[in-house]
């Protein structure tokens, strides 16, 4: 098991290794494997990348993202221009369904409306996240789906069994109304997110509550052993 100070060093090196980032502007704090990121970055793309790469560091149990985006003057755009670019981006995108609304206040984009699937909801967010002048995105899009008659939890559990990135013996799912609740302990944040993604793919699920806990001790070795047993 890595100590917090080792983990601190690994996160620092990972942020330094990433070409988009200036790690000297980011403060890292680690407690019991939970990494808190603070500081200022000059774009939302950098904000997103800091969190994304930190999640992939071995030993990280969770990431608290407290970085602020402060755009340099030359990158600031007026809200009306951003709103128009965002509306164009959503309209021109083949995945995002019609009817998604955009509001922009001081560079902060808020999306609202309905989609049938989580991948469409997330895609709408990534379509606007990287636009010039964007300071942040709040995704208020809701998933609108219908209750189904089949056994949703069994279908999700089967998906866990099929996937290479998930150790199905360590995660379980219960479905209440249209909410899928995930339980268990896995070795990495990536695995925790893979399980969540799999649950979102179920027809009839409009909410996923991910209560899976990350215990880095289970990483790698445990995964290989249990796969070999199948």
């Amino acid at each position, binding site marked *: 098991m890595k100590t917090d100070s080792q983990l601190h060093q690994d996160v620092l090196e990972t942020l330094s290794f990433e070409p*988009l980032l200036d790690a000297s502007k980011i403060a890292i704090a680690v407690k019991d494997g939970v990494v808190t990121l603070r500081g200022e970055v000059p774009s939302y793309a950098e904000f997103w990348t800091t969190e994304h790469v930190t999640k992939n560091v*071995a030993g990280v149990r969770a990431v608290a993202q407290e970085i602020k985006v402060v755009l340099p003057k030359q990158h600031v755009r007026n809200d009306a221009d951003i709103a128009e670019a965002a509306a164009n981006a959503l309209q021109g995108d083949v995945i995002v369904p019609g009817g998604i609304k955009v509001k922009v206040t001081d560079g902060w984009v808020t999306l609202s409306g309905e989609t049938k699937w989580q991948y469409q909801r997330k895609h709408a967010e990534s379509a606007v996240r990287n636009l010039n002048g964007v300071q942040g995105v709040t995704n208020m899009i809701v998933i609108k789906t219908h209750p189904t008659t089949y056994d949703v939890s069994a279908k999700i559990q089967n998906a866990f069994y099929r996937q290479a990135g998930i150790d199905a013996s360590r995660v379980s799912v219960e479905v209440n109304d249209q909410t899928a609740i995930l339980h268990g302990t896995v070795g990495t944040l990536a695995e925790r997110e893979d399980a969540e993604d799999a649950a979102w793919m179920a027809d009839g699920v409009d909410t996923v509550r991910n209560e899976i806990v990350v215990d880095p001790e289970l990483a790698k070795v445990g995964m290989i052993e249990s796969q070999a047993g199948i």
Partner: protein
Amino acid sequence: MKTDQEIQEDVQAELKWEPSVNDTNIGVAVNDGIVTVSGSVANYFEKWAAEKAVGRVKGVKGVAEELEVHLNGSDTHSDRDIVSASVNALGWYSTVPADQVHVQVENGVITLQGEVEWKYQKDAAESAVANLMGVKGVMNLLTIQKQPASAQVEESIKQAFARHAVLDAKQITLDMTDGEVILTGSVNSWGERQDAVDAAWAAPGVTSVKNHLLVNPFS
């Protein structure tokens, strides 16, 4: 160890499960764990999502993606419209150096050319245009600027593998000559194989990555 038939069944189930993919026109064949998907999909995103869905199935050692994008009649856009949408999208994309990227469109296939400094910029340019209406494919011919690759670069990639939560650095061998990285050894899944490539690309001075990693879930 899963048989090819079991893998085929799981791949078919996973494609049916993936909501962004319509599996009705997709055929799946498996030979020694290598999966070939062929047939047609409705847009470029679906092509990408189908490959990803296949790649995450346990036991899959390789993916040959031979899907063609067949746009529905109402989804076709003129090449001119796609060019102007692409130029607009690239111009607004914060991590793309837009004046370094040249766009051409022929029959709905976008070709990106030019030179950028980093792989993430090359990828960003592709993401900016890949899901525009009417796009059948993207040929990303952007090149990465040559930089002097120092002796530490090789070591820094190895360390990145070691820090990575999913990769097992001990099983990956790395060779670097003149900015070209060659990866050999084994990983546990098709997804990990991609993680290794991404990690190698982050290093300064890398201009190409040759991925010879084998997927061996029982190593």
